[in-house]
């Protein structure tokens, strides 16, 4: 059963067609990777799903409900969380505050009770702090929980951003290059976290990633975009052997293989 369905999506910026008729289904409980060369439209696709961009044509359905045209903050309420390619944390806030912000929709007390603090506001702060601390434990960031995010190294920030997305208790998690710029060890940690999130928490994941070996290892299904068009889709082994994909990544066979002619 599909959790997210993208139906014939078209998005262009002026004359540039960023996405040109992409349709796909993301099955519940799966890790679905989206790969493709730079400028293929992967992040634009994410931005359309989370309603930061509005596609000119086509729609996105989440749990059979049309979400295209909603406001980004309404998307969070449905249970869609995401991380960004360039880390988009709240730099002056501590790790805990970043995660507690992820609980925003689950906290109910407004200005009046928040200002008084004692009583209802404190009660729900403590309840949600427990949930956040579970995520802190899960992602092994206990020792930095009170540090401002701006002071953390890159790899940890990526992990904190993942934690913040998780604190929304999402059904669907969009990860935009979670391993970009990481070393091997950090990549392995991140891959393990992604698998754990999928298996233990049952979160469906859509993943954009350039490291193809990771993608092939952890994802259940892979879609390949090139110049805004979906050129291939299937399980990792199928996609890896698809001639269209090979051409998109390393160019035409004969261009690449032909011996340079002597002049």
């Amino acid at each position, binding site marked *: 059963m599909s959790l997210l369905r993208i139906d014939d999506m078209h998005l262009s910026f002026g004359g540039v067609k960023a996405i040109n008729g992409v349709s796909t289904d993301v099955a519940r409980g799966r890790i679905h990777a989206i790969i493709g060369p730079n400028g293929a439209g992967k992040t634009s696709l994410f931005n359309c799903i*989370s309603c*930061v961009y509005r596609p000119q044509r086509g729609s996105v359905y989440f749990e059979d409900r049309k979400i295209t045209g909603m*406001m*980004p*903050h309404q*998307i*969070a*309420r449905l249970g869609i*969380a*995401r991380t*960004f390619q360039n880390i*988009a*944390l*709240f*730099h*002056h*806030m501590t790790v805990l*505050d970043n995660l*507690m*912000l*992820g609980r*925003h*929709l689950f*906290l109910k*007390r*407004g*200005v009046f009770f*928040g*200002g*008084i*603090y004692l009583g209802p*506001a*404190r009660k729900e*702060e*403590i309840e949600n*702090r*427990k949930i956040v*601390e579970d995520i802190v434990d899960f992602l092994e960031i206990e020792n930095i929980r009170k540090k401002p995010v701006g002071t953390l190294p890159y790899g940890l920030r990526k992990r904190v951003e993942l934690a*913040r997305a998780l604190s*929304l208790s999402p059904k669907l998690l969009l990860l935009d290059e979670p391993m970009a710029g990481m070393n091997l060890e950090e990549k392995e940690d991140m891959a393990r976290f992604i698998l754990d999130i999928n298996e233990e928490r049952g979160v469906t994941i859509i993943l954009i990633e350039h490291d193809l070996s990771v993608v092939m290892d952890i994802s259940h299904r892979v879609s390949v975009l090139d110049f805004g068009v979906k050129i291939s889709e299937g399980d990792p082994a199928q996609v890896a052997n698809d001639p269209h994909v090979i051409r998109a990544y390393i160019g035409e066979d004969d261009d690449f293989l032909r011996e340079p002619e002597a002049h």
Partner: protein
Amino acid sequence: MHYCGDFRTTYRKDMEIFQTPFIKVCMAVFLVFLLVLPVLKLKGEYLLKGEYLWILLQILIASIGAVGINILTGYTGQISLGQGAFLGVGAYTSAYVTAKMGLSFWVGIPAAGLVTALAGMVFGIPSLRLKGLYLAIATLASQFILEWIFVRWESVTGGSHGITIPRPSIAGHTFSTDRSYYYIVLAVAIVMILFAANLMRTRTGRAFMAVRDHYISAEIMGIHLFKYRLLSFGISSFYAGVAGALFGHSLKYVTSEQFNIEVSIVYLAMIIIGGLGSIIGSIFGAVFMILLPKLLSVVTEMVSADIPSIARLAISFEHGIFGLIIILFLIFEPDGLAHRWKMVKAYWKLYPFSY
């Protein structure tokens, strides 16, 4: 067994605002100090002379106003150049309610807060589209529009003559002296500052900071941008309104010149010097911006009295030195006094073993 260090074993303890017994004692002592300071007498005379009490009173009022603008500018990242006018809205509202409608001070103050909050939210509507410096200019427009209204809407504001307003009274007792009025201002200031401190560390405050730090990802996390931008204007203006009303009642007279653009800039300076996005920084800033000019004028007077030949020079230097001190502060402590305060605390935490 007594452990060395500060161990908190429940989330409730971990989230307290004053975390250690030492801090709690310090705060209690400070509160008692503020309570008894005005009534202390030495040889039949008040220890705190009238003019010094007045300064303390103005610092308390400015603290409320500074916390207000810090909520908007420091926490939500929306620069405001209209704080002076919003103080004015509060002062005029309370003046109208107490002097013209004849209602009590205790109606006037909340009314001032609410009317100003409403005005702030109206002038905050451009924040839907404008950010940063562009929004600052939009708030500057609100400053001029409101000032114009203060002068022109004579039936309410008394025009350029202003309005004379009474001091508050409880059960027949009027707080007519500065010394008694001080206690009312102190109580309001403590309640409002604590409220702000709590608000900024819970749901609403976190949402404000998220909007400031990265509005797109705040939206993705489920925060309704426009609602929180407006709410920030509302809360901030509520504080400005109350501060303005207290200020009006302290002078017993409200006129439009008290709320000009200079006031707005002074308030902005308070939070920049004190520390953006910090409640205690707002208070430090208020103390700094009100105390320093007074200190400088005291020094100038002393110097002029001793060396009459440079009296005129010293007086003209006064403003220059004030400006110089502000510039030096910004160069050497760009994160504000609140940051310096943190460093001092961190230093003494481990004293004398700093490793």
